[in-house]
């Protein structure tokens, strides 16, 4: 196999070498437990503090508003379940959208089975929640609006600023799953009136297994993991010091490079989109044409099935995805593609390609050339295709 062309950076990213270098000392040299009293443990504590500071700086919040978790899923679960629990006396209604990640959707479904009411908002054909729908769904008993910052499959960026404004006006808490957006697009939680925000390190060249939840000061936060006094007594468990240090470094690099990266990736992405739409017939771009993550392209190829496309790409050393990584093992079509109005058989034939700043124009061209051939091959094999 020739060089690997990795176009699945929305599933997970390679860890940046500088991030690994940042983590290494905390495995074997400064391995102390940050909660320990001796000065040796100070090194670990400092690493945690420094990372928290970088992250708080990145979001425009205070360090005391950042709680480290084991990843985006934990952050989503914690945020939603915590609000459900703490604000139960105020109400039992939660507003979300049909295109959230399963970490949000399944948590909402769990709550729905336990006495909560959930409104799942429709999205438009580009995958955007309509702010007016959010507003119209608010009831006296609404305790939480949870809408993702950017969608993981189709890359569409949601109107977070408007939703934040509406949430504030109606005095309803607003959580956003920003797992795909953090480190990719600028986010200021105060400016956007975000009350809680979930993030995951491995989506921005940090290590897997570490994330954070931002919780605005003043929000009643319950513990999700009970135990020791870590994370201001709200999230027990010995701190994953190398992970936290790595996340901080990854965030620092992401911030420094954001502008240049976005420009570079957007151009490549647009090149990819233009070539695919021009050269492969019966093809559609999913998600908003411009209001999308700089590195995301998502296509539907009519008459072919997604897994077959992925396997054929794989045989040429190209890594893509047919939706979110977590569901690509399952046989259901993507709930996101169905929500933007795709019929089932097209929802089965989608391909997500997500770039990084290490992707080259040559990678893109190789991929498009390969796609042209293999889509044709699969179509010739397809009982749905008559040309």
């Amino acid at each position, binding site marked *: 196999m020739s060089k690997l062309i990795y176009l699945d950076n929305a599933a997970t990213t390679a860890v940046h070498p500088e991030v690994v270098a940042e983590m290494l000392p905390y495995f074997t040299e400064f391995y102390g437990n940050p909660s320990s009293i001796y000065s040796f443990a100070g090194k670990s504590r400092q690493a945690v503090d420094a990372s928290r500071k970088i992250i708080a700086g990145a979001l425009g919040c205070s360090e005391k508003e950042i709680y480290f978790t084991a990843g985006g899923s934990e952050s989503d679960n914690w945020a939603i379940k915590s609000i459900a629990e703490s604000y139960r006396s105020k109400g039992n209604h939660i507003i979300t959208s049909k295109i959230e990640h399963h970490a949000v959707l399944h948590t909402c479904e769990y709550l729905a089975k336990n006495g909560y009411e959930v409104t799942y908002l429709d999205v438009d054909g580009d995958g955007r929640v309509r702010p007016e729908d959010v507003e119209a769904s608010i009831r006296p008993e609404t305790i939480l609006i949870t809408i993702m910052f950017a969608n993981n499959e189709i890359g569409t960026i949601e109107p977070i600023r408007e939703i934040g404004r509406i949430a504030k006006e109606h005095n309803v808490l607003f959580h956003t799953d920003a797992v795909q957006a953090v480190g990719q697009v600028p986010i200021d939680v105060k400016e956007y009136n975000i009350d809680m925000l979930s993030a995951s390190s491995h989506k921005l060249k940090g290590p897997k297994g570490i994330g954070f939840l931002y919780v605005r000061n003043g929000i009643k936060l319950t513990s999700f993991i009970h135990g020791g006094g870590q994370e201001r007594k709200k999230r027990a468990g010995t701190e994953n010091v190398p992970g936290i240090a790595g996340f901080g470094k990854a965030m620092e690099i992401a911030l420094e490079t954001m502008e240049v990266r976005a420009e570079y990736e957007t151009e490549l992405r647009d090149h990819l989109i233009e070539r695919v739409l021009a050269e492969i017939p019966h093809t559609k771009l999913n998600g908003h044409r411009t209001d999308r993550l700089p590195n995301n392209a998502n296509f539907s190829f009519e*008459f072919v*099935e997604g*897994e077959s496309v992925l*396997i054929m790409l794989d*045989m040429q050393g190209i890594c893509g995805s047919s939706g979110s990584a977590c569901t690509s093992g*399952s046989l259901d079509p993507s709930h996101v593609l169905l929500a933007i109005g795709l019929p089932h*058989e097209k929802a089965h034939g989608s391909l997500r390609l997500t770039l990084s700043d290490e992707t080259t124009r040559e990678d893109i061209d190789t991929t498009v050339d390969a796609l042209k051939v293999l889509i044709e091959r699969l179509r010739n*094999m397809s*009982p*749905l295709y008559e040309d």
Partner: protein
Amino acid sequence: MYTEKVMEHFNHPRNVGEIENPSGIGTVGNAKCGDIMRMYLDIDESGVIQDVKFKTFGCGAAVATSSMATELIKGKTVQEALRVTNKAVLEALDGLPAQKVHCSLLAEEAIHAALWDYAEKKGIIIEGLVKPKSDIHEGEVEEEA
């Protein structure tokens, strides 16, 4: 995820295509669920399957099982073809991941559907063959879309 044999058949599927004026044709599956398989059979006077072709809209396992199934029934009698179960296809492919076993059922069903069509056209009854449930009549797919 897939065995070498599956990958080999996926990558070089045998008997892809159509047969004009086939003795029997069967389409099974459902585009909504992401898989459709169509089998074409050319059966001679003595009941031997002279040629077989398929088209598949489906995952890698669906393609590979179609390919293998056609290989297994080609040159066989109708009765022999009936005994080619999805288990036989699975074994010939050195197995499939658990959540992909249902894809191999599709190939078995498609053959049965094509044989049923053949029997209907000929006005005969094939012993042991029951009407496949999931047969899709021509045009239905397009209507649903």
